[in-house]
């Protein structure tokens, strides 16, 4: 049953990683605006043939 000590440790470390990931995303501003990115993905790439700008 001593393996449980290891597993408990793993679970806490995993949870800490997730917490750290959340804190990072929050500090990074990823949660600042949760509406616009959802609209942004719906834009098509330029389709008209006349050309790209470069």
């Amino acid at each position, binding site marked *: 049953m001593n393996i449980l000590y290891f597993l408990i440790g793993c679970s806490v470390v995993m949870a800490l990683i997730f917490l750290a990931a959340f804190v990072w995303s929050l500090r990074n501003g990823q949660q600042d605006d949760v509406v616009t990115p959802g609209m*942004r993905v719906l834009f098509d790439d330029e*389709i*008209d043939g006349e050309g790209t700008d470069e």
Partner: protein
Amino acid sequence: MRTQKILDISICYHCGEEIAGTDRILDDKHFCCTGCLGVYQILSSNNLCAYYSYNPAPGKRSVSNAYFEYLDEPTIIKQLIDYQDDKSTIVTFYIPAIHCSSCIWLLEHLYKINPAIYNSRIDFLKKLVSISYQNKEISLRRLVETLVEIGYEPAINLQDVVKEKSHSVNKSLILKIAVAGFCMGNVMLFSFPEYFGLSSLESQFQTLFGWLNLTLSIPVVFYCGREYFVSAWNSLKHKHVNLDTPLALIIVVLFLRTTYAVVFNSGPGFADTLTGLVFLLLMGKWVKQRTYHHISFDRDYRSYFPIAVTTLIGGRQTPKAINELLIGDRLWIRNGELIPADSILMKGSAWLDMSFVTGETEPQEKVLGEIAYAGGRQMGEGIELEVVKLPSQSYLTGLWNKEHYSHDAKHHFNDRVAKYFTIAVFVIAFSAMGYWLSYGNSNKAWAAFTAVIIVACPCVLTLSTPFTLSAILSVFDKKGFYVKNTDVVEDMASCNSIVFDKTGTLTTTEQAKLTFTGTLGDEDHKLVASLLTNSSHPLSRQILKSLGYGSSYPISKYKEIPGKGISGQVCNRMVYAGNKSILPFDLKGDQQSGVHIVIDTAYKGTFIIEQQWREGLKELVSTLQHNFILTVLSGDTANDQEMLKKIFQKKAGINFEQSPHDKLKAILTKQKNGEKVMMIGDGLNDAGALKQSNFGIAITDNINNFTPGCDAILKGDSLTYLPNFHQLSKDGLKIISISFGIAIAYNCIGLYYAVQGTLYPLVAAVLMPISTITIISFTSIATRFFARKNNLL
């Protein structure tokens, strides 16, 4: 541009407005004006026509002819930008015109219009665009002008300079919730074996779980729960008890008991209850902090004023930041610009639209040497003024600097209850302890004392208020009524008197109704329109708009007599438009006001401009007058007195020609008489009254328009729901009281075990979430029920 032709009904491809007059056609698309056409040309030449595919007619906003010289001034630039280095600059603008996905698409492709722009990012809800650009290649002014060209004029005003960082507060709360949630989840996990009973095999883990739980509760207490200690300490210092005091005490007791249990291995401890409690408390706080990103409630004159104004230094026009203006500076105010400081008119003829300051709809004329007050908007030619008072000390801004906004210390339900609650808890806790001590059982006495404090947690009480009120807020929100925060809902419920402003509140700000009595033939029509084209007077503009623009005849002998009217010779016929005194003969009959039209010697008729009353006003007033004392304070002249008397009952007070300060005084008098006043107004002229009233509602037809500082913003067409809104806010308080009753019932169950000193941690851990879930579901169901009852759902 290939052809120009006249079309009867056609819609502009860019702005969607009906094309009146000349139609401009490009690529088989119709445009109403060169502005719209120009935008289309810019877009099409840069291959950005996909803009139109996301929304038809996206450019629903006319391009204004603002001046941006001030954006070349380094001192002003410095105040506006977020970041700058040798190469690039980042700046964030608030653009009120952002309203659809086309806007996002276009504004995020700015780099195609000007390669010097690296990238641009939009925050749709806040209507902010943040742009980074090469500062060597493009100036800030050019950047803003580019934005204006494509129809997105950024709102740059004085308040931008003072950027408030309310955002970070919210972020730290979310961080705390995350930590508390993390700790709670893990503590629950480690407590499960304890809940189900430990077999001999598992009991070797008991100590480990105990220490893990204790470790996890340390950040919860000292990081997440810190505010409660601070708040409790502050209130104790001021010798009064708020709801945070018992909460802080409970957190301390839970933590101490858990530590004791773990260190002396005497039981599982209360770590699960502790972490759960803090998590729920923070959730309640978060629900309460819900804000509207797109609406600002704390706007004052600074968001109405521009950031800079053109000054004349040695005859040369130089832009200057408004907060750097000095007494004696010469200002140059163009048509449509705002006078930022009280000043004396030095040159030119001033027609000032003072509607924001006084509520007066007709523009005032000022002669040389007269004082023009800040807040007036010049209509007509450019004028020169000399500053006599600093912008921050003007007549208008004095409304905000007044010190007498003395609201009584607000006593909300929670604060009132907190005192009795805390006393009751202590009485029970000490008597339980005393009881067990009298039997000499000091262990049990200690256990009972702490258990009572744990069980009698006002957690439910602190949660029911934010959950109920925020549910009410979201009901209001759907009906176009945006309330600043949850606290003020209680203020709204307590109101028993309503004060209305007239212009813009009881009447719509949209086009006033224009009626013409008399007959005007097609040819006469054209003659009058030709005459009016030459006048910049707002009345002429309004009539001209109703006549429709068209090709006009040349005019000679044009004469404009301020305050009287205009006359001129069109096609060899004399045309007169104005009030009685400009006409070549006396008018018979009782036609007094309005714009009279006379061609040669024949009286043709009169244009009468009437204010349009809001729909359903009569019904609204007749519902309200049963429960409220109604008053109307109008800044306007007494023209509409008869009409208002018909709508309002006799006992309602109707006062005209009220200055902003008079309105403020009226509110103060009412409050002295013990009335709880709800003020409903719009413009800056109501700002003082809105601020002083117990609950100030700013009414607007467009949420993005300027609204003065207030407690709530109401969409014009939702005004008829006002009695329902008020009733729901009252019902909300009822819901809170009932949930308090439910909480007490739960507490009694817990207390039954607690006073006996037999509160097992499991009971506490189960009781708390159950009571919380009951309360949250009760409040949301009850709110929906009452909202339905009040026809708001």
